[in-house]
């Protein structure tokens, strides 16, 4: 398996977390929770950026083996934060933390760790 596949595996893990939260945010919106439109748009933007960064990382630095450990830690952190986002209140309260964790994914992809 090439480095590209490793990067994509982590990307897909990050996207899966964000997908799950997008769906949950949609459910909360439909249940009447306020502020979910912007939450959904922020999550969609995070997805776009994860996909973008994984792509450019692969093209810019396909030998970024050292980044993978950092990348894995960052996706794990995303999972931990995402697990806290259950109700509308905790969802909105933790959205910034999820953004921070996702930013670590971007940083790992961008800097090669």
């Amino acid at each position, binding site marked *: 398996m*090439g*480095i*590209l*596949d490793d990067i*994509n595996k982590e*990307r*897909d893990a990050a996207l899966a977390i964000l997908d799950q939260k997008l769906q949950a945010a949609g459910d909360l919106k439909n249940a009447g929770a306020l502020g979910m*439109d912007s939450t*959904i*748009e922020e999550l*969609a*933007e995070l*997805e*776009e*950026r*994860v*996909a*973008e*960064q*994984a*792509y*450019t990382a*692969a*093209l810019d630095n*396909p*030998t970024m083996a050292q980044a993978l450990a950092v990348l894995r830690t960052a996706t794990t952190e995303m999972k931990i934060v995402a697990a806290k986002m259950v109700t509308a209140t905790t969802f909105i309260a933790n959205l910034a933390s999820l953004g921070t964790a996702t930013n670590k994914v971007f940083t790992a992809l961008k800097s090669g760790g």
Partner: protein
Amino acid sequence: MVDPVREVCEDRNQPRPWDGRRSQWWIVYERPAKPVSKGIKAAAVPPCGRVASKLRGGPLRLSWVVLSGLAACSPYDFSKEVGAFSIGVDQLSNGFISGYAALAADRAAKTELDLTGARAKVALASSCLVPAPSSSKDQVPCALFRLGDTPPALSGIEQERDRTTALLAVLKDYAHALVAVTNAADRTAYNAAVAQLAATVGSLANEAGPQGAAASTVAPAAVNIIGWVVGTALDQQRFESLKAGVTAASTPLANGEIPINFVVTAAGDGLLALSKARQRVLIAEMNILTGRLGPSLTDAAYRQGLSDAQAVLAVLDGLHHADPTAAAEGLVKAHEALVAAVDDPGRNYASLLKAVGDFRDQAAALQSALSATPAAKNTTTK
């Protein structure tokens, strides 16, 4: 029923009888020359069948049998599959081009909704006043935006457009070169096709790493004068060149990357990024449209708003169903199946048909999803 025709295929591990190398022997294959019955499609008949027997005899006798049977392993049997493979690659490339245009249209539609709803004052991006930079990285969208807001910027995938386009162009060139080799009608066309294939395999290798040596393995096959005179050698050479081309493209480089897989996966990543960029804009558009729907609207405005929202939803749903990563994996599998089939057609031909068929379906679905734009015009206002 048709009588089986004895056909001869070269065992590549063994030298040819006429070139004086040692340990020469030939394997005779048997297969029906035409479909056995109406119920069996010609395409399902593998290029070479099971091994029937070893051929024994002197070099002269061997040569005649070999010459009469060289067409048996001809690339004609693969031209349909290689053609389908190439069409699929074209669809991925076309999907990116039209998806890129659709993303700009999505953004314009979303801005229009934003501005119309608020009756906002409008600004013109200053980039509209000067010629666009040649590199996609430096471009700024020429667009209207709400006065006082930050001017719109290209998304990451739009900035990387040149690189994605280049990756897809390399893939397309490679697929077209495979088609050219399998379809070369005469010696001149064949020579040009082999040169084209060698160059494109080199391009694939260069994208995957600094080691571009894979290209050198695709040398034009040596001309067989006797065979050429009787018009049989070209078929065999096309087959050998196809085999050499796909094998070289699948041979790992020193960095461990397989050229074709690397380029396909990277191109797939670009297509995924484009799909996600469109999804983000469409979600924002959707939020605006659904947010406007309510009892205060007239019947006509409500209907129009609902119709607009459904049109956006259809595009969004299409993007969710067409998976660029899966399409890229489908392409990799189709190529692997092609490598396996040219190596052992009798055993692997059916797998090739399935893999190419699956890839074509995925590529068509992706192209369709990336090209789609909301049909209705989003003009609903409160």
